[in-house]
């Protein structure tokens, strides 16, 4: 039960985190009426995950060998792109709103950008969605097997609890975030999403290494005895900031390059030692 709990928590955590942030974000800018974009995006992500999970059962040959990998890798890079774009946009608004007390966002401008919000919700859910669906499906197949027995059902329960806890974490962010001041919320989530995107980007680069499109290189460090990505905390940090227990040099380089570029994009225009100190504070 513990093992299946960690698996589903690991898969669902990132999605819950991102959805929690996006909902809070809409709430903050007075866009409650636009929640449905996030909900639809997330729901579409679930539907697409189930369709792909069922679909792979019908695939065979090169389509089965390559199709899911191409989709998975594509989704990662799309997610990085939309998250970066979103972060940049949030920064623009944080600046615009600064000095005016919780001013409502310009309605027209918001509406034009809402598809990004929906796309973020979709990619966040879809990224690990297929894997999670397949995992739960496998658990159920085993539990309904005559030989399955109690142990299998406790596995199903563990899987379900893992997802529930992930959703709970997203909910906590949503509720906690509502109380934080707008300025602080923007700063913290911008940083958080930046690290999350850096982790995603290096994961995408890692996939290209797995395909043999980039050289494997050697492992830079090995902290798996200390903090495995399969443990609760390791899984948490992996989803949050892209922690890796055994990263390759290329992955580390990708992570740092993304961080540098994103920091320049998001914070470069107002970079000064004083402001830097301010920003580190809420993190």
């Amino acid at each position: 039960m513990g093992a299946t709990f960690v698996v589903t928590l690991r898969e669902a955590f990132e999605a819950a985190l991102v959805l929690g942030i996006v909902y809070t974000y809409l709430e903050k800018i007075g866009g409650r009426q636009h929640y449905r974009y996030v909900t639809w995006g997330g729901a579409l992500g679930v539907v697409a995950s189930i369709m792909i999970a069922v679909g792979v059962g019908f695939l065979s040959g090169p389509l089965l060998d390559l199709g899911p990998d191409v989709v998975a890798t594509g989704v990662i890079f799309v997610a990085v792109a939309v998250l970066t774009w979103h972060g940049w946009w949030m920064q623009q608004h944080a600046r615009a709103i600064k000095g005016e007390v919780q001013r409502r966002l310009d309605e027209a401008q918001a509406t034009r950008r809402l598809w990004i919000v929906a796309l973020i919700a979709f990619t966040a859910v879809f990224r690990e969605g297929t894997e999670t669906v397949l995992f739960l499906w496998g658990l159920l197949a085993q539990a309904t097997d005559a030989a399955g027995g109690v142990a299998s059902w406790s596995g199903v329960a563990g899987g379900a609890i893992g997802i529930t806890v992930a959703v709970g974490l997203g909910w906590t962010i949503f509720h906690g975030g509502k109380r934080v001041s707008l300025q602080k919320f923007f700063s913290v989530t911008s940083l958080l999403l930046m690290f999350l995107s850096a982790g995603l980007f290096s994961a995408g680069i890692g996939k290209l290494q797995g395909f043999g499109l980039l050289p494997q290189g050697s492992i830079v460090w090995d902290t798996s005895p200390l903090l495995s990505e399969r443990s609760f905390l390791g899984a948490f940090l992996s989803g949050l900031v892209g922690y890796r227990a055994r990263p390759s040099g290329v992955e580390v380089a990708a992570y740092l390059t993304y961080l540098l570029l994103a920091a320049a994009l998001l914070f470069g225009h107002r970079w000064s030692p004083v402001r830097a100190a301010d920003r580190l504070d809420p993190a």
Partner: protein
Amino acid sequence: MRRLMAVLVSLGVAALMALLGVARAADTPREVPLTIEGNRFMPEEIAVKAGAPFVLIITNKDRGPEEFESRDLKIEKVIPAGKTVRLKIPSLKPGTYGFVGEYHEKTAKGRIVAE
């Protein structure tokens, strides 16, 4: 903006498809069978030559899906129940590379030893 994004995304996917296709067609590597049965891998140790890419032919004989996952190789691959998947492994430096069946980590474990 939306159209531009869609074009960029489809271009990216197409490029990736093409690259993967090229990577597959470029060589005719050795094929190594690997079976999943009873939530275990058979064999659990695979010996290969270092520096030569190969193809794992993974057959899942179980009733549920399994995910071949190797953090060392940066590979995750779902094998639906009753299916066979060809998984291209790039050339490896000498060493041991662990893998697990992510859906049954306790029992499904194995390693590739490249020499």
